[in-house]
């Protein structure tokens, strides 16, 4: 991207920073939400729920920055694509924030009822989700398509882990119906984490779209 206008560059830089800020924040929310579940720590869960408001605010900031850039700077095609991508990434990150909040709500639902099993795979899934977002942010900062493509491998791994967790929990519930109330929040958490990864894949698709100027939606997922 070449511009005569260095002010425009500064503004684009600020937009990038805000997207990064939001990405880093949701990553930490995923970690905290699953930690809160693992340690049955409702205080930490509440912390996540409160912090999600910051995520929402950042999405608004991004939208405002993008609209201003489009309206006042009349960007050329590549820049325009970059700016609309930033907006869409903002939307995906906002959804990821909501999903972290959902996980925190599962922690509060569970309260201090004993866990049906020690949490091992869910923290692994949370780790994967964060890695996927880290890759998405890397790809975003450097417009690196190869990094973006690595996210599909994470998604695959995520799906396998989700299946495993789901099977285990279903087995526990089938054996003893009284565990349902305690197993369900864990089952839902696995789904939330999987959906987080889906949003990371959306971001990857958007980045590839900007760089290669073509739509890759639902490609490479096979």
């Amino acid at each position, binding site marked *: 991207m070449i511009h005569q206008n260095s002010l425009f560059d500064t503004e684009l830089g600020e937009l*990038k*920073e805000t997207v*990064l*800020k939001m990405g*880093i924040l949701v*990553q*930490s929310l995923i*970690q905290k939400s699953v930690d809160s579940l693992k340690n049955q720590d409702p205080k930490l869960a509440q912390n996540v729920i409160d912090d999600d408001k910051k995520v929402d605010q950042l999405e608004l900031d991004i939208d405002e920055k993008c609209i201003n850039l489009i309206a006042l700077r009349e960007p050329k095609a590549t820049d325009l694509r970059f700016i609309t991508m930033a907006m869409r990434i903002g939307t995906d990150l906002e959804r990821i924030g909501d999903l972290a909040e959902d996980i925190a709500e599962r922690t509060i639902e569970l309260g201090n009822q004993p866990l049906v099993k020690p949490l091992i795979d869910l923290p692994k899934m949370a780790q994967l989700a964060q890695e996927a977002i*880290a890759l998405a942010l890397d790809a975003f900062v450097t417009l690196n398509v190869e990094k973006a493509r690595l996210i599909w491998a994470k998604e695959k791994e995520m799906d396998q882990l989700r299946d495993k967790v789901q099977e285990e929990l279903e087995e526990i519930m089938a054996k003893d119906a009284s565990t349902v109330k305690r197993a369900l929040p864990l089952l839902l958490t696995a789904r939330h984490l999987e959906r987080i990864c889906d949003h990371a894949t959306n971001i990857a698709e958007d980045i590839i779209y900007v760089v290669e100027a073509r739509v890759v939606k639902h490609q490479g997922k096979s």
Partner: protein
Amino acid sequence: MSKFPFLITLTSKIEALEKALKEAEQKTAETLSFLETQRGLAGTILKSMNEGVLAVDEKGNIVLANPAIEKTFTVIEPELLGKTVRAGLRNNEIAELIEEVAKAGKTIEKEISIIVPIEKTFAAMASPLKEGEEKKGVVCVLHDITEIRKLEQYRTEFVANVSHELKTPLTSIRSYVETLLNGAINDKEHNLVFLQKIEKHALNLSQLIEDILEISGLESKAQLGPFVEIDLKKTIQKAIETIHIKADKKGIEIERKCGISGTVYVLGIEDHLYRAILNLLDNAVNYSSSGGKVTVSCSQDGKKISLSVADTGIGIPPEHLPRIFERFYRVDTARSRELGGTGLGLAIVKHVMNIHNGEVEVASEQGKGTVFTLIFPG
């Protein structure tokens, strides 16, 4: 010669000039090597610092990151250079601190926690870099205070626990005394029972205080005193003698069988070692029913000397095993209190073994019994 006097002047002038030039050159070389050394020195200092040092230019792009930063964030400096703090370190708090300092133009100190790649707490200090009046960016120093914070947390929890544990017997004592004062003192049927309860709680209380003092004694390494050669068999015998009355009362047999002939010496502090063995024996007796048996044995493997206390008691459920060495952790708090336990016995054992560079292991089967083993490096 006198024919060309100006030549002479010229030659001498050239010579003087040459000399001056040489001197200047010499000086420049000296200055340069001085500067080089200085820069090398600064680099060496930065490299060997435990604190993370990060500098950004006036645009907020990273221009320097020392190895401590590289280690904490698992990155390498070349990957960071030219990137913003968010892009490079993926951290909002540090980025915000630096932005704040750049704006305010003054030093700001702040505590910062990171959770990725590992959980850590830093005392961060950031200052503006200036050349004259010109702003040149910001330098940020991260001092790792994770351990200090952890220790503080640990202390706070311990103090909270101790006050709770102290209050429990005190509350009981006060309520019995009150009941007695309110007339029960003349109630021949109950007054003795009340006094016995008071005595029991008072004993618990003094045991608790003794254990707390023991723990704080173990913690202040300076006050530990020198290691001496200890006759292990003798110390075991002493501990068994102490516990014998209690064991006899409960109908529990204590057997001693040592697999090492002759005198066994370990290096350490006798008082503490005695307490550790006594605590294990006390537990073995406490958590066994009458008719049980406690076996104390020792063995040698190479230089290592092991001492085991095995009982035929109630055992410890596996999910509790990882936590029983924590202070105040008990499987059944009510039962432990009833038996006069403080919840500190095993914490003391663990601490004693730590200062002896040894280890303590536990194996247990519910309903069958428990074996604690002290291992000395020899």
